[in-house]
């Protein structure tokens, strides 16, 4: 049953919110020991569901009435443990609801629990959590990260919809590896108030689900201007879930991405699917040059190192008990120590400034492409995910982000839809759209998933 059908059943009384939540709690009880998608399950979820059922009877329920929503452990939910999968914040309980959580609660979505992730959102495998790795419910490879628990929870049917965050691909990478749908909204589309930041100039909260309708509906609710987050834009939020028919469009593929894709089977599959989608909607397909796009990884990491170092100075042990440097994963430590080093006065800001300038260059490349075409289609990762426990050196792990990072650097929106299986591993097709073009992006994602 997809999200639209389930909402119809809940609103017509055929399925109660209590029964929906109960069924998820049963699945979590059975599967979570093995998958380790949830770090915390909301003990009051059933109580919340009862209240929603009463509202449904009175005809006063919101748009998410009775749906089970999982939340990545980096987004504040009042009175729930928001640990960032770290020992540093192991005992931290959210002191307030993030803007997105307030909006979900207002629409009667039920927070079913807090999901596992790579410690402080640093990693793309799901193996960097201080509370154990998350398993991929679909295959014997890593689930991807850093929103590993959110993706695994959706893929294992432990919730209806999950929230994740995406700084360089942390929603799209696990969505691809777990065979589900995911979206990274444009920078400034969704309020980050209440998000514990990894890299303030790149982070965005986004959505994971088994179908595009669920994502579109959630995006309608969480998008929009917030006075609490000055980077949000006051632009209209349309009804994303009323998918539009998109005509006369041009879809682009790029030789640069083809060259960067190390597993040629992945690129061949994406190209074939792009052509199929184009045929279905009468779109044109063309190749486009994207100069300097191969510098995305080298541009992204100096920015993230410096901003993570800066953003985590508050975690000095005085307020929450543990110093981050003494209680985090090796990858977080690498970024903090590296960020501290390259921020030193003796370097005169060379690394960060150079990276910021290159970020502008890559944004310009992508924005120029959108003057000629409507969408860019590309793989989500250049390789299939590694097996659990198979150690990669940091540079090899960073290279996994090569296709997702450009969207963050340019501030555009990007989505992933499942398109096939290679060696038993799900593969997702990534779609880039220009900034604040979520309405058309979601419509294309819906077309791509319809048979």
């Amino acid at each position, binding site marked *: 049953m997809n999200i639209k059908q389930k909402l119809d059943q809940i609103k017509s009384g055929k399925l109660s919110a209590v029964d929906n939540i109960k069924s998820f709690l049963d699945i979590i009880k059975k599967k979570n020991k093995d998958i380790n998608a949830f770090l915390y399950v909301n003990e009051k979820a059933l109580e919340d569901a009862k209240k929603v059922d009463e509202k449904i009877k009175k005809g006063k329920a919101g748009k998410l009435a009775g749906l089970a929503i999982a939340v990545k452990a980096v987004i504040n939910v*009042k*009175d729930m443990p928001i640990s960032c999968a770290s020992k540093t914040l192991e*005992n*931290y*309980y*959210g*002191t*307030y609801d993030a803007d997105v959580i307030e909006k979900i609660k207002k629409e009667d979505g039920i927070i079913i629990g807090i999901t596992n992730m790579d410690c402080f959102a640093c990693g793309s495998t799901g193996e960097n959590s201080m509370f154990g790795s998350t398993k991929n419910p679909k295959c014997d490879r890593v689930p991807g990260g850093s929103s590993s628990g959110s993706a695994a929870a959706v893929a294992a049917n432990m919730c209806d919809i999950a929230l994740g965050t995406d700084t360089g691909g942390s929603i799209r990478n696990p969505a691809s590896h777990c065979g589900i749908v995911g979206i990274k909204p444009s920078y400034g589309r969704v309020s980050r108030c209440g998000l514990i930041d990894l890299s303030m100039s790149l982070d965005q909260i986004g959505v994971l689900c088994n179908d595009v309708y669920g994502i579109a509906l959630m995006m309608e609710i969480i998008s929009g201007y917030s006075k609490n987050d*000055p*980077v949000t834009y006051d632009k209209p939020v349309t009804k994303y879930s009323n998918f539009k028919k998109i005509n006369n469009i041009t879809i682009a593929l790029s030789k640069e991405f083809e060259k960067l894709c190390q597993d040629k089977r992945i690129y061949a599959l994406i190209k074939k699917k792009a052509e199929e989608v184009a045929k279905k909607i009468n779109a044109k397909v063309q190749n486009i040059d994207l100069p*300097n796009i191969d*510098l995305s*990884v*080298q*541009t992204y*990491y*100096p920015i993230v*190192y410096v901003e993570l170092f800066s953003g985590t100075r508050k975690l000095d*042990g*005085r*307020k*929450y*008990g543990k110093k981050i*440097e003494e209680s985090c994963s*090796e990858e977080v*430590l*690498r*970024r903090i*120590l*590296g960020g501290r*080093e*390259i921020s030193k006065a003796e370097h005169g800001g*060379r*690394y960060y*400034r*150079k*990276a*910021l*300038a*290159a970020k*502008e*260059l890559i944004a310009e490349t992508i924005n120029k492409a959108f003057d000629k075409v409507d969408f860019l289609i590309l793989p989500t990762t250049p390789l299939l995910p590694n097996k659990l426990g198979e150690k990669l050196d*940091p*540079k090899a792990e*960073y290279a996994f982000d090569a296709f997702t990072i450009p969207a963050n650097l340019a501030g555009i929106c990007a989505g992933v839809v499942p398109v096939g299986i290679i060696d038993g591993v799900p593969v997702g097709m990534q779609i880039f759209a220009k900034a604040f073009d979520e309405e058309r992006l979601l419509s294309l994602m819906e077309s791509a998933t319809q048979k």
Partner: protein
Amino acid sequence: MTNEEILKQAKKIMDEFVAALDKVKVKEKFGAQREDQVRTPEKECPDSTEFRKRIFKNAPKIKDDYFIMEKKEW
């Protein structure tokens, strides 16, 4: 790995990355991009009783109405 080894590895990665960026001509421009949206503090503080309770629940050590900080570390 020791902290020193991790730092050395991180610095090496950063040096390689920035060396790659050195090869392209990039114009550096800085400053606020959206000056119209600078956040200003609110004049009035909302009632903080509940918020204080939650913040105190997170503090490692408290006494009466204060956090206890470790003197040596300062």
